[in-house]
Every structure is written in C-alpha cells, then in structure tokens.
C-alpha cells in the first residue's frame, strides 16, 4: 500500500535502447508522448528510428514513423548503416511510414481556414494498419516551417497527442533547439503538448564533441536527473551510458582473493576482497604493470578467468614483461584462463572504449579485470568525459561482482597524485601507492596500502624490489618521513624513540 497512486497509474514502456531504460527507471511513460528536443546533429532522427526499431526487434511491437523532414527513401538508406532494415519491416507489416515530408518545388497557397485533420486521419489509419504500439514524429520544426499559423499547429499537435493517448500509443516527437542550453524547443511545443521532455545534446567541450541525454521531466514518474553521455555505434545505434544510474547495490563480499603476491596480501590484511576495485597509483616504471601482472597470474593460478586490458603496451611487450617476472601469459591465454586486449587509447572515443570494455567483459566473463593504465585514457577525453568514464567503468565492474584492478600514472616521478586518483578514490575499495624514494642518493621503490575498505591493513611504507620471479616486498622504511609527499627526510633514530616515549607516556596517563 506504499505505492504512490500517481506513480502506479503511469506505467513505463521498456524502450530497449541500451542504457536508456536504466536512467528512465523502466522506460518511457507508456501511452504518452515524449518530446525529444535537440540541436542540429544531436541524433534525434536516429533516436526516433531506434525507438521503433528496438520495439520491433526486441518486443514484437510494431511502429509508425511520421516524417516531416526526410523522405522515407532517405531514412531507409541512412539507417541501413546502423543495421536496421526498415524496408524488410515494411514488407512484413511491422513498420509503416506516414510521409509528410515536403513536396519539392511546390508552393502551397492558403485560402481560408484549415486544420491537420488529414494528418491525424493518416496516422490513425497507419496505426490500425500495422497494429502499432509505438510511434515517432520527426521533426516538428519542419511542420512549423511548413505552416504559418503556429498557434493552430500547436493546438493540432495537442489534438494528435490526445488521440495517440486514446489509442494507447507510446510516442516520441522530435523538436529542434537553437542552442544547447536555453529554451527547450524553438516553437514552445513542450508547454502544452507533452508531459515528458528529453533533451539530446552535442556539445563542444575542450575541442571534443560530447553527446549527452537528459530526462528533463517525466511528469508523475521517477527518473534519473542530469546528463548522461551516449554514443552512436554502427550496427547498434544509440547506446546510453547510465553511469551513476547503475546503483551500487552489489553485495559486498567478505571473501578474500589473492593479489598474486603473498607479501602484498599480508599488507592488505589477507588479500583483496572478492568484488572490490583496487587502484594502484604510481609514477612511470615503478611497478604498476608488475602489480597488474601479479594480480592476473595470481588469479589464473587459482583457476580464475582474467581479463587484462592494456592501454600503454602491446601484447608482445606485456608477454615479454610477464616472462621477465616468471609469468607465462601465452600459456595462460592458450588455456583460456587469460585474455589480453591491448588497444591504443587514441583508436576511439572514451564512450566507445567503455562499450568495448563492457562487451569484452560480457563475452569473456572474467573473475578479475586489470586495466593498465586507466590514466592513459585521460588524454583522449575532456576531464568531465574522463570522470564519467571512470565512474561508468567502476560501477559496471562492481555490478558484475568481479575484482577490478586499475593502475594510474602520476605525473611526477616522486610524490604526486593523478587525476584518476582524484576521480575514483571515493569509489575504490583499496588504494595502493607505489613511489620512488630517494634515499642517500639512491632510488628505491616504496609501496604502501593507503586504504583498505572494511579491513585492517599494514600502514607502513615498505621497500620493494623486482627480480626474475616478480615482486618482493621487504622491510618498512625506518627513520624516514615525507615519502608520500615526495620529500623524504631522514629522521634521527633517537628522535623517533623520543616521539614514541612521548606517546607512550601520554597513553599511560
């Protein structure tokens, strides 16, 4: 009896557009019309077509496409590249066009009062002809361009939306926006025609294009607020990246897994947790790839499938590195325990990387994933885009309840922090820092567990070395302070002793 009567009255129609239903909390309001507003080139037509295409492909729901702008022949041809065979659906009676695109080279003369009764009659006939559940109208701007009496067109659109509601059709109307952040649409349609408004944006941000989708209002129903990035992929169409909509509702497991190094396990209080995100941060060459390799080899040795995503080094290079540390990647791969994917960050945009990573995880079903390095992807995106990517990837991995180890390169050799750390430190379960430490004119490597959610851990900074069998963690640095900040300072032993006794005395009191 706790259900809100308004919310229970409006049901949602699962669109089938990847990612959209998650942020729309189930889909578009069923039997209602949703306005889809966007500037030129914001993929409105693709969205409108895909809304019908997914209905046909996934749910057997037939669709009517009302076009005011492009001729049906153009739409059929343009959408073929996205993998949709509209002509075949038309032949099967699952899709039909209502062609209201402008007739070329013909002036219409207005001589008296008129309405859009013919359009409505054609729409109703088309809906009945194919037994449609979904309808898309693209785009209203062209309709307003065609007729001068805008007040009339608005009231006629209202009449059409009302008729669609009676026919229990879930519909999308697209409309133009002149600017990315301003009025919802150019002709003020949203005010009285529709209850629901979505906005597509294609904004230039730091010399890079970012596409986002925002659910501006869904009257009477719940949805996620804010802008969500999306991409348009050949053969797939629009893929929305739900980011924070992927609720962090995964069970947190108490099962420990090995980091691949007994000494590191000990520092973490018995190993990493089964479904946790571990961030390894350090300057170039100080052992991040090594830790990733240990993590993978340790998993594979325990019979877990492992995925290694490399953005800095080639497959051959990784195999050679691993061999140098006594791990045989080729053997693991041939036994199907390991899959190495090495991609240069520049080959695609971050949204596409995220989708590629997700599908690799879905396909290979690994128990652990290492990403070396996450920060290499920083350079192909804007700061905002990168942050969204990191959050999206993290939440996806956590959702799958697998262990993820990400590495991040710090800009400075000694001390320092990375953008990645700043972005994901709050959502990672463990943070391991690797640092170069300069002591008495010598460079050594230090490792420390900065954070270990839900567990006690070693708080010392320990020296570690690398040899042909991998990583070896040794003693903690004695008599040194300031390693993390990059300014190690040697402290006299008697000073430490003095501080110790100071606190000891304090405790006794």
């Amino acid at each position, binding site marked *: 009896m706790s259900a809100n009567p308004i919310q229970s009255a409006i049901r949602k129609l699962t669109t089938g557009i990847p990612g959209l239903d998650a942020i729309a909390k189930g889909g578009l309001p069923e039997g209602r019309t949703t306005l889809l507003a966007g500037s030129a080139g914001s993929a409105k037509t693709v969205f409108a077509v895909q809304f019908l295409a997914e209905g046909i492909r996934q749910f057997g729901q037939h669709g009517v496409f009302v076009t005011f702008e492009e001729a049906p022949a153009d739409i059929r041809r343009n959408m073929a590249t996205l993998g949709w065979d509209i002509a075949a659906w038309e032949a099967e009676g699952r899709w039909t066009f209502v062609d209201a695109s402008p007739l070329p080279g013909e002036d219409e003369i207005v*001589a008296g*009062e008129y309405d859009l*009764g*013919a359009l409505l009659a054609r729409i109703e006939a*088309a809906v009945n002809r194919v037994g449609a559940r979904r309808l898309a109208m693209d785009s209203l701007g062209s309709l307003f361009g065609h007729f001068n009496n805008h007040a009339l067109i608005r009231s006629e659109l209202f009449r059409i939306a009302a008729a669609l509601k009676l026919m229990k059709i879930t519909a999308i109307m697209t409309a133009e926006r002149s600017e990315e952040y301003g009025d919802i649409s150019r002709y003020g349609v949203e005010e009285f025609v529709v209850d629901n408004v979505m906005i597509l944006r294609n904004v230039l941000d730091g010399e890079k294009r970012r596409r986002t989708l925002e659910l501006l209002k869904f009257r009477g129903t719940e949805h996620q607020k804010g802008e969500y990035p999306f991409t348009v992929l050949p053969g797939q169409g629009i893929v929305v990246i739900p980011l924070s909509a992927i609720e962090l509702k995964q069970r947190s497991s108490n099962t420990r897994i090995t980091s691949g190094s007994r000494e590191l396990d000990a520092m973490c209080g018995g190993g990493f947790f089964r479904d946790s995100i571990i961030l390894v941060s350090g300057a170039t060459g100080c052992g991040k790839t090594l830790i990733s390799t240990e993590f993978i080899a340790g998993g594979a040795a325990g019979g877990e499938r492992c995925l290694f995503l490399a953005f800095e080094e080639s497959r051959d290079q990784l195999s050679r590195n691993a061999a140098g540390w006594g791990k045989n990647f080729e053997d693991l791969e041939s036994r199907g325990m390991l899959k190495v994917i090495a991609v240069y960050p520049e080959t695609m945009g971050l949204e596409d990387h995220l989708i590629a990573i997700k599908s690799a995880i879905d396909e290979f079903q690994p128990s652990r994933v290492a990403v070396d390095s996450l920060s290499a992807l920083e350079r192909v995106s804007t700061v905002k885009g990168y942050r969204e990517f990191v959050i999206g990837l993290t939440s996806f991995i956590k959702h799958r309840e697998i262990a993820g180890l990400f590495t991040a390169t710090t800009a400075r050799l000694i001390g320092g922090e990375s953008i990645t750390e700043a972005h994901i430190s709050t959502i990672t379960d463990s943070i391991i820092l690797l640092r170069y430490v300069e002591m008495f004119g010598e460079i050594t490597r230090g490792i420390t567990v900065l954070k270990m959610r839900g567990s006690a851990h070693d708080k010392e900074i320990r020296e570690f070395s690398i040899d042909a069998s991998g990583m070896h963690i040794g003693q903690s640095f004695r008599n040194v302070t300031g390693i993390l900040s990059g300014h190690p300072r040697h402290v006299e032993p008697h000073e430490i002793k003095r501080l110790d006794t100071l606190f000891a005395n304090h405790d006794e009191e």
Partner: protein
Amino acid sequence: MSKFVLKLYITGHTPQSERAIGNLRRICETELQDQFEMEVIDVLEHPQLAENDRIIATPTLVKSLPPPLRRVIGDLSDKERVLLGLDLKSLP
C-alpha cells in the same frame, strides 16, 4: 480552355468541409463553367489516397490538370487566393 481536374480532400463532413465544397463549387461554376471535373475525397474513408497525395492539412484542393500541379489549403473562403492557386489569375 483545357479541362480542370480537381480533387478536394476533406476530413469528415464538418462545417469546414461543407464550406470548402460550397465555395469550390461556386468558384468553378462561375469561372470554369462546365470545364471541370471535381472529386471530393473524405480522408477518413480513403486514408490511402491522402497518403499517396501526401495530404497533411484539410481541406486541401489539388489541381492535377492542367499542369502545373497546384495545391490550395483552407476552406477556400478567400476567392482571390483560390483563383491564384488555380492559375486563373496572376499576381497583380
């Protein structure tokens, strides 16, 4: 004068539709005498014909012959504009 072939699309027999039919008939009889064929098409009964001619607004008058093809929308109450649309009158 060559024969005029006219189609008038209406949506149901509303007062607006009846006005358009009456106005068209009056204009044709005075201007074209018997040199015209006039067909009234109700979109509610023949949506496919409206689909073929891509009719959006009603009433819409389509002049198929003589060329060029012309469309006039509205209840045809503005006689001057109708004559313009039928190429019976050019712009002053």
